[in-house]
């Protein structure tokens, strides 16, 4: 990707970084199998076929917790909210409310006096606009993460790109743009989902720069063909340009399970498996990340069981299948080829990140995972 992608203002900020900030040596990337996956479809032996890279390449490099549990509400926003705060959340499931307890992004940035470019949320799920920070008086927007919803960004750039009415094939471009906008604006669980803007808005220059990448996107035969691939594309760009210390990446194509097609759900699980592996490879290719990055991979939650719940299509029964997940960690500070049957909770991710990056997270429900810190 050419340098024009990066807003000049951000270049300037990066080169004149204040010496008063205390950017830690370590990096953490948390990746979710967003939407939720069942243990039986992934880390159980019969599920290995769906996550071949995770089980055969990533797990041997790191540590696996097969007995992880999601507690609290089993909706997307509250599940991921619990992951980034270490405390159960009980806010609007559609994303109109921010987490009610401090997020790792705010605490990290405040304690280390770091610029916004040090903490990012990149999410396929369009309801995650407010995932970057709480609205607490002492924290909130000034310390929140940058939140990027790649599909929503693409929608606005598509609109801008086709508004010129110039160039050949404009009629088809309109048709394509309309179809893509509708596809990108989907919500697998129903109609009428809205996008709630983050309190920390992305700069206009950053948004504008994406419009240029769109032209290449239209003409590139290797263009992303799913929302998660677009999220992957954006994550790589942000890593390349800003090398942030803390990234939370939400893949979410898996939630197509709500459409009731088991094969599409499995296809999305396999795609996520591939993208996680490619993301780790990408991190290893960057000097800013190699040997200093801890990758944490965890499902947002499970999905209903066939017998006790409502089946793979949903995650609302609250049954064990909906709560049983797993966690894989690898990279800096993580023992290789290890595993522990010790039960853990997804709530433990946030305080673990805090210990790795060296900031305090005193009042959350989770406890740091001693094996990773």
């Amino acid at each position, binding site marked *: 990707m050419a340098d024009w992608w990066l807003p000049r203002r951000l270049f300037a900020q990066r080169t004149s970084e204040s010496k008063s900030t205390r950017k830690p040596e370590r990096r953490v990337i948390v990746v979710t199998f967003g939407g939720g996956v069942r243990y039986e479809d992934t880390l159980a032996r019969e599920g290995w076929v769906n996550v071949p890279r995770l089980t055969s390449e990533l797990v041997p490099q790191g540590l696996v917790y097969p007995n992880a549990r999601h507690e609290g*509400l089993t909706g997307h926003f509250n599940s991921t909210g619990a992951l980034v705060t270490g405390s159960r959340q*009980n806010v609007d499931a*559609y994303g109109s409310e921010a987490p009610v307890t401090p997020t790792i992004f705010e605490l990290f940035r405040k304690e280390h006096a770091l610029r916004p470019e040090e903490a990012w949320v990149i999410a396929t799920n369009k309801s995650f606009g407010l995932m970057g920070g709480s609205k607490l008086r002492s924290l909130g927007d000034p310390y929140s993460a940058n939140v990027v919803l790649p599909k929503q960004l693409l929608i606005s750039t598509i609109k801008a790109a086709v508004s010129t009415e110039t160039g050949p094939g404009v*009629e*088809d471009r309109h*048709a*394509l743009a*309309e*179809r*893509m906008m*509708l*596809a*990108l*604006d*989907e919500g*697998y*669980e*129903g*109609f*009428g*989902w*809205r996008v709630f803007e983050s309190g920390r808005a992305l700069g206009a220059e950053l948004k504008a720069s994406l419009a240029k990448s769109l032209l290449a996107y239209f003409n590139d035969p290797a263009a992303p*063909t*799913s*929302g998660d691939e677009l999220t992957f594309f954006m994550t790589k760009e942000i890593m390349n340009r800003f090398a942030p210390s803390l990234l939370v990446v939400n893949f979410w*194509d898996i939630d*197509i399970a*709500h*459409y*009731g*097609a*088991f*094969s*599409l759900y*499995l*296809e999305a699980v396999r795609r996520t498996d591939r993208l996680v592996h490619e993301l780790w490879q990408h991190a290893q290719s960057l000097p800013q990340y190699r040997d200093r990055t801890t990758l944490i991979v965890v499902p947002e939650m499970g999905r209903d069981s*066939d*017998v006790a719940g409502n*089946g*793979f*299509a949903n995650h609302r029964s*609250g049954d064990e299948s909906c709560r049983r997940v797993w966690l894989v960690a690898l990279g800096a500070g993580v023992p290789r080829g290890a595993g522990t049957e010790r039960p853990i909770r997804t709530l433990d991710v946030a305080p673990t990140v805090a210990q790795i990056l060296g900031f305090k997270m005193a009042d959350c429900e989770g406890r740091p995972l001693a094996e990773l810190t």
Partner: protein
Amino acid sequence: MQFSAGLTGEAATLAKTHSEMLARLPATVHAFILVELQKWPALFAPEQRYQRALLQHLSRLPRREFDEAAAGIERIEADAGVARLGERNPSRFQDEAQALLRNRGLNVAWRGEVDGFFQKIDPALEAQLYPADAPRRLVVQLYGSGIAVQREKLWSRFKGAGVRVPLDLDGTSGSEQFLQALFGARDSGRGGPALMAGAIEAAPLDAWLIESHEALHRLCERSETTGGAVTGLSYDRLRPYRDELTRALNRKVQSGVESPQAFAAYARSLQIIPPAGTLMYSADVLIAFVRDVLLTGNGTLLVNNTFVEWAAVQALRRAQPRILVTRFGVRDRLKPFSSMVLFSQPRASDHNPVVPDPAGSFIDVEQLSYYVWLNAEKNPAYRRKTLYLFLAEGVDEMLAIRSDAPQAAARPARARLSDVHATMAQWLGVPVPDGSGRPIVEIVQ
């Protein structure tokens, strides 16, 4: 709690008859029952029977038993402050109570108590509503031709339940021949195959055909158009209805929606009539059912087999037909990004043709047909009374599961589709026409 439900007819009579008991119920349960009574014209007969039995049972329950059953819910309502809600419309009260419970972090505990309340009541209601000597039922699930069946994986989710019956498919090369041989000749007087017409007498809602395409509908069509003898839902035939529904929803989305809840309320209020010929039987209760299936099942507007499964599960739960036949088909492949383009219609300029996905469809229908079976077996109307048959067009094997004897003793000899037809007829107690097949002894005895 005093509610203003605006009930009429039998629903009003029921509420009045049991008013003293209703007033003693926890407010959230009281509101729930009134909301159900408000739907009275859109309830199927089994749902109405359940409401009558529920009210009667609760009214007869000794005071102490009643209070003990309700105590857990009342405690949570008190903790949440539900009594302070001023809303008198039961539906809006439900929404406000749910919001309150959620804000107080009590909704999970409340749901657990409500489940416990009905678990105490349901055994008595089930014994009354579903006696052991009730008529037998039949559920047939078909995989249409075109689905890329993998023989080694076929019906593998059933893990040894039932019996595999080898089939002789001579003379049944296409779907039409296969289905005619399976269901027998059409009854020209009553519409639909004689097997179904004979089993359900004059009640169309007792036999349902739910399919992704139209093969079952064509089998049952009559030359005259005086109404069908069975109930049929075809995803393909419902296309004009689905299109109109999606257009209405799209218009609402474009004009702005206040909240997902408000949008759902708008969707439920839509009154769209399916065009003539869309439904074989078009009672008002069925039209409301179709709308609900398309609105409440996440993928039902977009994926044909999801529609079949969700509609079947809802029919089993709500209408409890004596005969249910599902026929799954091939769904379309994904397009870039998701291919599930809400509200969009393919156009020539899209340059993105619809491509079928026979391999993915097989993976899907294996799971979906299993879910239909699981849901039927959770239902007391079907438990221990039902014969389940699973067939794939063009595949010389069938899976048969009797819910009263899931593990069959012996593997039957090769059977013809006419034998399967005779087996279904004998199971249902319908006379087997002369010259047709012979019942499969290992299944019916």
